[in-house]
């Protein structure tokens, strides 16, 4: 470890997911192998080939005060709920506003607002639009509202890289702290994209599972019979701090956020590069950044979305860049894929795995596909060893964006 390098720690966790309305209920559900995927009842459901999704276990509009929730897009509601949980969990640090930052991303932004506001505009005219329509649909809205809520002045950002957005936000937050721009940064991802248009568009890309007769069995990463991803919604937020600041205020430290690695496939706008060179590179960069070797990594919370194209390429790259030894799981088997929220909730889960030294099993993994040599956790949860442990969270996005975040046990 370089003597003068700023180290970043995780001191707070927040999440609202298809399996629970907060971190504890979500985590318990994962350890119990519960799926959050449900058959949808929306009025557009007969117009699309997919009739299920991982809807949020707790409606954020029911949690927030009504005057607040009506001004927030659903993606902003999720982010606000998770950010407040994380902030309280961190002990609500009394940090100077100019030393507090926010980096919270979504892959798609306030698309429910965009679409419903367009209907209002067409059917009833411009003057029936809420004056909050723009801040509801803008993709930096979740970060901006959290920044306002906490009074953050060091910088409020929203990195956008499709399904890698949440992980990229966490990486950018780490960089802010290391660069000395902030002492505390609230970081993560959010998404609320369960809408007919999104389902239709992802289905048009032939990316979604159509296992309509078995919704809870539809998200099945690495299983031979997987047929696409399952859309999920929610948010996952971490409070990150410099180690020095956290220790000075006596904060509880969950883990170190020790490294981040980025790369771009530069291969195809949606298809993963078949050799996994880009994702290997992201993992290798992240290890170097964390000053760790593959042997130090005991667990991987994989991107693994249950698509035929992506799952195997990722774990082959894990074997190359890290080794075949880590316990690998995909919590998306239970939550579905939260797109820009994925890196947020899965970083929360990765930190929980390090803290409790347990890896939740991937569900629906009945027959492991060919070409996989890593140790996939399935059938039952597995424990992580005593001593120093580190773990990786991978997130990849349409556009060829690859992000790997490394966490190390406290």
């Amino acid at each position, binding site marked *: 470890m370089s003597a003068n390098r700023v180290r970043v720690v995780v001191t707070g966790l927040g999440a609202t997911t298809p399996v629970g309305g907060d971190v504890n209920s979500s985590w318990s559900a994962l350890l119990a192998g519960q799926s959050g995927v449900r058959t949808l009842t929306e009025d557009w459901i007969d117009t699309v080939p997919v009739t299920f999704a991982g809807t949020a276990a707790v409606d954020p509009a029911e949690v927030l*005060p*009504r*005057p607040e929730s*009506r001004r927030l897009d659903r993606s902003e509601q999720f982010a606000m709920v998770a950010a407040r949980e994380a902030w309280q969990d961190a002990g609500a640090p009394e940090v100077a506003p100019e030393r507090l930052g926010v980096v919270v991303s979504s892959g798609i932004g306030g698309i429910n607002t965009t679409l419903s506001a367009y209907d209002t505009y067409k059917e009833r005219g411009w*003057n*029936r*639009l*809420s*004056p*909050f329509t723009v801040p509801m649909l803008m993709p930096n809205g979740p970060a901006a509202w959290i920044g306002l809520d906490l009074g953050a002045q060091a910088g409020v950002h929203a990195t956008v890289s499709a399904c890698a957005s949440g992980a990229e936000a966490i990486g950018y937050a780490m960089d802010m702290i290391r660069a000395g721009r902030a002492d505390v940064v609230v970081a993560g991802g959010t998404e609320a994209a369960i809408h007919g248009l999104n389902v239709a568009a992802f289905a048009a890309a032939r990316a979604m599972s159509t296992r309509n007769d078995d919704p809870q069995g539809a998200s099945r990463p690495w299983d031979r019979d997987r047929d696409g991803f399952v859309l999920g919604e929610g948010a996952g937020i971490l409070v990150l701090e410099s180690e020095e600041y956290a220790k000075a205020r006596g904060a509880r430290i969950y883990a170190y956020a020790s490294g981040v690695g980025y790369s771009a496939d530069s291969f195809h706008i949606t298809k993963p590069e078949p050799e996994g060179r880009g994702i290997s590179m992201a993992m290798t960069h992240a290890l170097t950044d964390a000053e760790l070797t593959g042997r130090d990594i005991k667990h991987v919370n994989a991107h693994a979305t249950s698509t035929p194209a992506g799952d195997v390429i990722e774990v082959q790259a894990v074997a190359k860049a890290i080794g075949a030894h880590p316990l690998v799981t995909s919590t998306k088997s239970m939550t579905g894929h939260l797109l820009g929220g994925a890196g947020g909730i899965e970083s929360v889960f990765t930190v929980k795995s390090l803290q409790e030294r347990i890896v939740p099993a991937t569900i629906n993994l009945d027959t492991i596909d060919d070409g996989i040599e890593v140790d996939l956790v399935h059938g039952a949860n597995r424990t992580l060893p005593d001593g120093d442990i580190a773990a990786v969270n991978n997130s990849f996005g349409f556009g060829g964006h690859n992000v790997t975040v490394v966490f190390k046990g406290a």
Partner: protein
Amino acid sequence: MAATEQDILEGLGKIINEITGIPATEVTPEKSFVDDLDIDSLSMVEIAVAAQDEFGVEIPDDQLKNLKTVKDVLTFIQN
């Protein structure tokens, strides 16, 4: 049948509560939106949009800025 002032006041109180969280019972005729109820200009736009739906009365922007008190709105809607 035209709505009575009391009906309009109750409807307006519900709208203001929904939008701002201010208890409907605090919405009384003599209150100023800015000075007493601490309602900002964008919230006033939200209230105007909701009031148009509720009472079927268009409130143009150049009129809205003249509506300073709850009583002003009651009078505008009744006329």
